[in-house]
């Protein structure tokens, strides 16, 4: 087990290196730092001095991959690739293009993101499972057909509509919750109700269908037939056997997205004005702050891989038949 985890962790390194090289190529080779400086400074006719100054302030005035002007190891280390991309491995995310410390920003902004993401996940999973069980219970009746059609209809609505409609009807017309905004501490409660509600409703269509297929697969198995033959009622079979056995795929499906909860939801956060990592990323994209976008790409990939690793480990924990070696 320990061996396996160590091996998997070592496998993370080349993947992250690949991510780094990809972002490096995208951000520094396809467009040189000069191009970025011109774009940031706004004008096509910026003087070269201003461009150089911009680059120097942000440490982009080094050669890309190889520094001929330096000696020894510094030939490799005094380059943009080493300073900007390799340093990410040490979680030294550096300073954003407008001069703020990215690590400090992230550690401060991840809490609002979690405040939205965790309740959304919990309530979402609970609602989805409830409705999926209902659909299974009323199998091959009109209730199921209707329910499935509603699921597809819900899936066909863009997430943006849920947010806009929710903000308008619940926030503006009924004035039950604030339309947008955030407050630190316990006061945050009233601000997160609406985003969480919308997150749950927005994920309902695809979620219910997903859990329904899980339960369907499970209830086609032999032990379900045996249980029914023994005379257990449908309800007992559903809760005691199907749900219990389906917990394995359900749990592992949740574990894989747990780390990514930190990243927050881009759209929800920016619509509701929540100062989390999602809106941080969106702001960075719209103000074209490449340093932040690069850091978030790295962080996102890192968390994704951690999620995969956690999934594998959780398999062994919930299903004793699975052994990792």
């Amino acid at each position, binding site marked *: 087990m320990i061996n396996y985890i160590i091996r998997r962790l070592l496998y993370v390194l080349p*993947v992250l290196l690949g991510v780094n090289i990809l972002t490096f190529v995208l951000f520094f080779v396809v467009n040189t730092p000069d191009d970025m400086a011109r774009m940031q400074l706004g004008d096509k006719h910026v003087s070269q001095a201003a461009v150089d100054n911009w680059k120097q302030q942000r440490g982009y005035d080094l050669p890309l991959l190889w520094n001929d002007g330096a000696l020894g190891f510094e030939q490799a280390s005094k380059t943009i690739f080493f300073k900007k991309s390799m340093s990410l491995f040490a979680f030294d995310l550096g300073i954003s293009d407008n001069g703020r410390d990215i690590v400090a920003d992230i550690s401060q902004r991840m809490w609002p993101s979690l405040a939205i993401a965790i309740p959304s996940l919990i309530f979402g999973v609970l609602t989805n499972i409830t409705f999926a069980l209902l659909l299974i219970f009323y199998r091959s009746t009109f209730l199921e057909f209707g329910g499935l059609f509603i699921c597809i209809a819900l899936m*066909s609505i*863009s997430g943006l509509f849920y947010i806009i409609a929710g903000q308008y009807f619940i926030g503006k017309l009924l004035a039950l919750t604030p339309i947008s905004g955030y407050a630190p501490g316990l006061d945050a409660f009233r601000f997160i109700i609406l985003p969480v509600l919308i997150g749950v409703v927005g994920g309902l269509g695809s979620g219910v269908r997903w859990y329904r297929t899980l339960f369907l697969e499970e209830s086609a198995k032999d032990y379900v037939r045996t249980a029914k033959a023994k005379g257990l009622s449908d309800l007992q079979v559903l809760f005691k056997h199907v749900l219990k056995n389906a917990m394995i795929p359900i749990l592992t499906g949740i574990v894989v997205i747990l780390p990514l909860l930190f990243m927050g939801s881009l759209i929800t956060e920016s619509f509701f004005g929540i100062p989390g990592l999602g809106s941080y990323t969106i702001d960075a994209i719209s103000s074209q702050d490449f340093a932040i*976008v690069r850091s978030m790409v790295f962080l996102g*990939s890192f968390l994704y891989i951690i999620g995969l690793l956690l999934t594998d480990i959780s398999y062994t924990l919930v299903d004793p038949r699975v052994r990792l070696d």
Partner: protein
Amino acid sequence: MLTLLWTDIAVFALVFGSALAAWKTSKKEHAARPWKKVFESKVGVVSLTVLLVFILIGVLDSTRIQQNKELASGERSDYTETLSLLDIMLTPLRVNTEKTYSEPFAHTLYAKEMTVNESGDTQWIYPRLVYGGAHLFQPVEERGGDILAKVFKGLSYGLLTWLVLMLMLLFITKASCYLKKPSGIRVCSLTLLAIFLILGALSALAPYYHILGTDKVGEDVLYQAVKSIRTGLVIGVLTTIVMLPIAITLGLMAGFFRGWVDDVIQYLYTTLSSIPGVLLIAAAILMAQVYMANNPELFTTIEDRADMRLLLLCMILGVTSWTGLCRLLRAETLKIREMDYVLSARALGVGQVQILKRHVLPNVMHLVVITMVLDFSGLVLAEAVLSYINIGVDPSTYSWGNMINTSRLEMAREPIVWWSLTAAFIFMFTLVLAANLFADVVRDAFDPRFNK
């Protein structure tokens, strides 16, 4: 003169390509069998018919003709403009622009304005629209009856067109064909009837009213929503076309050759899929923007720029979304390569490329078809989200995402302007719902797990 943008060429290539593929499939019994199942399902036929109407609109909108611009006086100026066939069909919608916002079916603007009447007094009133309801003398009393009359007229025209079309079809094919296989064709014709009725009513109303209102600069919202169909389709389809060759080649190679090829390809897709999709797209689009800003000489017109950006967006979405299908194909190929028929082909000395082409590829095609139809609706929805973050299509391109994006500010107005959002919602919902329903039917028909 016919002038085509890059995406237009892609659209036509796609239409011809899929027509060819359909023709080839219909000749092979085993390949056509799952499709027959799709055509037997009512939901499948209805959704396919709706999708085909959308596609027809998209194709009409991709056929562009360059002509000299028409002046207000009716003469032709020296300036040229490029219009699609759809633009020409929708001329009243395109040219009847008002001053600013007006409600659906309104005869006045949405906001009061200071105007001078005939006797020289200034008044604070809702000014009449230039086009919407302009034919009415007493708008308030006449409007309801007029709309009803126009709807009725439109419906009857729609019914008439449908009847003529159906009679022609009956005449061309044989009447017996219609009676022998009733289900699919009957459902299709009934769906068409509904579509013709709607189109008839809309086309009867459109020259006289702004059915879905006008936007901030007075442009007809219905026109915008219809023009957005092409953008949605291009993104949904072109992306899958970009992604398919990568996913199929790499997936088959990884599963078939194993060894270091497999390792490299697995490493590639783990790396790519570990990057959060939106961020990768954002990074790529940002870079494309920098490139376009620094090389303005490559893109002469606004249309060219917008089109290039649409094409780039499709490519980027394609490059970021091939990993899922690749993984599926790899796993399936791993299974197939151990099958007896592959073994016997190998024993007979068939080359590896031939085995892949003749024995493996046809047996994984069901996965390809399922992924294509399943991805389509997701991509249409993704366009809206990306446009909202400003990393989607160009702001000058008509798209539902851009409509939703602008309507955010309109929803904050008092009184609110709700029709842009509603229009985008209705159109997007119809397309995506049809696509989702169709995808469901196709998956049921193609997935061997459902074939019992």
